[in-house]
């Protein structure tokens, strides 16, 4: 039996996110808003050997179909991950991630003087003025950041 199948059993229905940057699986779940308290079976595999990337993480969430709006949120931390939608053990949809146009409430603005870092009823909001390479711009203080500065 190949090594891969030993580690990653097939699921009947749900969402499988493959090729996550090694070590990022927990952050991916947090960004997706999946905590485990939903009661669905979640399998997390971390630092799995990968032909393409050396090591990778995999996340499987059973009986849950995540929309592109939700899954695209993880594109900044793991741009090459793939999303597989599984029904009756078959991959019915395989989609690459796309960078969203804006990101609301997910990351803190690194500018300590930004109004979003004061005690006000306010959510952070970043626009992506460029997608290749990706850049983030805070809606409020207008500072421009590389993703690695924000995440």
């Amino acid at each position, binding site marked *: 039996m190949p090594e891969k199948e030993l580690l990653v059993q097939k699921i009947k229905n749900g969402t499988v996110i493959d090729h996550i940057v090694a070590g990022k699986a927990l952050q991916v779940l947090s960004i997706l808003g999946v905590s485990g308290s939903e009661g669905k079976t979640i399998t997390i595999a971390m630092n799995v050997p990968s032909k393409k990337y050396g090591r990778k993480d995999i996340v499987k969430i059973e009986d849950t179909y995540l929309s592109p709006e939700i899954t695209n949120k993880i594109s900044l931390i793991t741009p090459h991950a793939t999303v597989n939608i599984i029904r009756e053990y078959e991959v019915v949809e395989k989609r690459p991630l796309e960078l969203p146009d804006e990101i609301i409430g997910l990351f803190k603005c690194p*500018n300590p003087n*930004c*109004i979003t870092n*004061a005690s006000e009823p306010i959510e952070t909001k970043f626009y992506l003025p460029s997608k290749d390479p990706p850049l983030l711009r805070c*809606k*409020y*203080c207008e*500072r*421009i950041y590389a993703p690695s500065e924000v995440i």
Partner: protein
Amino acid sequence: MMMGNPFKNRDVVSIKDFSKDDLLYLFGVADRIENLSEKERGHLLEGKILGYLFFEPSTRTRLSFEAAMLWLGGKCLGFAEPRTSSVEKGENLADTIRTVENYVDVVVIRHYKDGAAKFAAEVSNKPIINGGSGTEEHPTQAMTDLYTIIKEKGVIDGLKIGILGDLKYGRTVYSLLYALSLFNVKIKLISHPMLRVRREIFFDLEKKIALSEHDNVEEVLPELDVLYVTRVQKERFPDLAEYEKVRSSYVVNLKILQKAKEDLIILHPLPRVDEISYEVDSSRYARYFKQTLYGKKLRAALLSSILDAKV
């Protein structure tokens, strides 16, 4: 030709929200207000109240708004320092806005946080004017600066404009650069290498206007039509000892002005420290005190346009 009033009920958060036509409209209103009889002018904003919320003290900006409002027959209320207000007791910006908007027709806000005015405008049901927020923008100063240039030089297009001083943290510089980018000008950015403009400027403006960076004011002075000087706030300088060594090379005095064009004008958003020597004040170049008078007229035009007074 009569244009619709593009400022009616509008927030003035960023200079970037306004077009060249908007600014020219505003300058037209400023001219018309000046030409009204004292009696007509004194009734323009009768019954209207300007609220000023100054979370960071700025006597000049507040006085300028207050003078403009009183000039047009309006009234003002607010606080000039957070120490004397409920803000000291821990009330946040959102709650302060939601309270004050019930008492006034338009609000001018000054705040030390970046993006505070934008947030205030989202919260408020009354028009918000940004009187300076964080290190980011000061749109009414930029409008004043352009109005001064147009009144003193007749045009903006075709000018070579030097901007000298703290280009990294000086908020007036940012708004001024965005405003100038609507015109066809050449801009020389003159500063110590540690005080260069932030990367947003090149990201946003590089393709729109001719920008170049320089270390030395004397090297570019002979070609300038306008020299805009800003204050270097020592506390913001990363290495003070380093700055003291080079400070004198960024001071404008009569000696270096010998190389200037006859009709150069010097502007400064004020207050100044010593970046322009006092001896320059009485020279033919100085316009920075006149600039404050233009500031009052421009703010009068802005307030009457936002409140849609018929000028």
